[in-house]
């Protein structure tokens, strides 16, 4: 039998390494295919993220309607409020989240209690900036609703109910 040339002998002795190299290439190829298949659509289009996430976020339902929605129907109250001291707080700051009511007016919101709610902001508390109107609840009309004297939408004394 013909003696193997040095080159063929080398290849024969390195054959197992060639198999390993082949396995590696197969693995890398498989990985590349998997990547092409599995990366979410559009990923990286605007940055390193899935653009579908933005749509997901935007689809989140509203819980607060926003004052513009309230003012669309309750124009008279909006007008009264805009002239008085409570112009700044939005409707839902006191009335709570009302997107359900805004989309279906037959859903009745609950009327806030005319004392607990008011004290949440207006009870004197160290740390509240001094220009902000605060009262000592034990001394300032300790019994009864605040709305007995202060109209909720125009609380300045002498204003319309």
């Amino acid at each position: 039998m013909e003696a193997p040339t040095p080159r063929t002998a080398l290849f024969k002795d390195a054959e197992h390494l060639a198999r390993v190299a082949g396995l590696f290439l197969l693995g890398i190829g498989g990985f590349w295919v998997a990547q092409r298949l599995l990366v979410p659509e559009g990923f990286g289009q605007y940055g390193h993220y899935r653009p579908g996430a933005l749509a997901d976020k935007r689809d989140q339902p509203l819980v607060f309607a926003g004052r513009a929605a309230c003012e669309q129907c309750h124009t008279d109250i909006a007008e009264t409020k805009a002239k008085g001291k409570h112009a700044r707080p939005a409707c839902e700051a006191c009335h709570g989240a009302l997107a359900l009511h805004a989309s279906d007016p037959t859903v009745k919101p609950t009327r806030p209690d005319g004392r607990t709610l008011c004290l949440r902001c207006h009870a004197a508390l160290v740390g509240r900036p001094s220009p902000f109107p605060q009262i000592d609840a034990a001394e300032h009309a300790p019994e009864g609703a605040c709305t007995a004297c202060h109209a909720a939408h125009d609380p300045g004394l002498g204003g319309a109910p």
Partner: protein
Amino acid sequence: MGSTIPGVDGYMYPNEMELQWGLLIVLYPFITGLVAGAFILASLERVFKVEQVKPTYRLALLTALAFLLVAPLPLQLHLGHPERSFEMYLTPHLTSAMAMFGFVYLWYLMAVLLLEIWLEWRREIVLLAASTTGVRGFVYRLLTLGSRNISERALALDDRVGWLVTLIGIPSAFLLHGYVGFIFGSVKANPWWSTPLMPIVFLFSAIVSGVALVLLMYMAVCALKGVAADMRCTDTMGRYLLYAFVIDFSLEMLDLLHRVYEADESFKSLDFMVHTRLYGSHILVQIVAGTMVPIGLLALTQVLSLTERARRGLYVAATILTLVGIFAMRWNVVIGGQLFSKSFLGYTTYKMEFATREGLFTAALLLALPFLILWGLVRLLPPWTAPEWRTDRTTA
């Protein structure tokens, strides 16, 4: 001023009171540290020709593999959505050190460790493929990858390629464990973690833990097999352990000194934490019992002339304390970094659970698992050929 929340003193941001990374995240760098350290020890012989540690070469490789196979488990158990972890392969965010985990891990497993082990054992694999029957024989035949060439030239080629793989493996091992140090060290929000020294400290403590583990295991396996441990080998490992320890300790002390001297805005808060909540694990376990005592014991073996028995005893004591100490170091970094508030006004406590996904029991199982795997590996790929330990690679 005390707070009314149990376990919390002072003020913590509301979202900070619960720890984010717990025991399993302590375990992960401990495990990869052992892998890197065991591999560096193996490379000492293969690349740097420290032939005294030759008897541990194969054992070190198998130990590294056993621990490497377990390494991803604590991470998977910790994730909120482990089924999504493959996303790190699909869309790795290149600015995140954590994103490189999947690739570095795969690279190290496939292109370094498995390849090196395969090349090292190939001769035995081919022989056993021919002589073994049943399932085991099938496994060996599979491992041959279809090639039965164990001629001298082929084996010499294996040796050269193996040398190259080990050479590449050293920076790969550095990366495998160093990146974890960078994960912590690059978080500017956390002053306990944020330091450029972190990857280096992690690496040297990894080398310390890996060498200690292999030294301990070598002596244990010798004892189990009723074979005398090669004292030249153990003494050399002890020496390298001491060197690595001195460097590691110096780095940690440098970090400490720097913090105390600069005393930046976080210092008072961190100092208080170390003296109270972290006192036991940091001062007592990590520094005193886990570093200074082992260094002392190892130094004794260098300066005194001791009997073999005495040295073996000292090595056992030193390595066990070392492993506990390095675990404590990981604990102090991970848990310690979350015990104080980023407002520097408060502290919380780590509520370790027992039988949950991230609990103590799970951690214990995860620590035991590599030894089980190693037992299996040793049976499949013996680090020695019967009847006695063979360190010579080319003779039957």
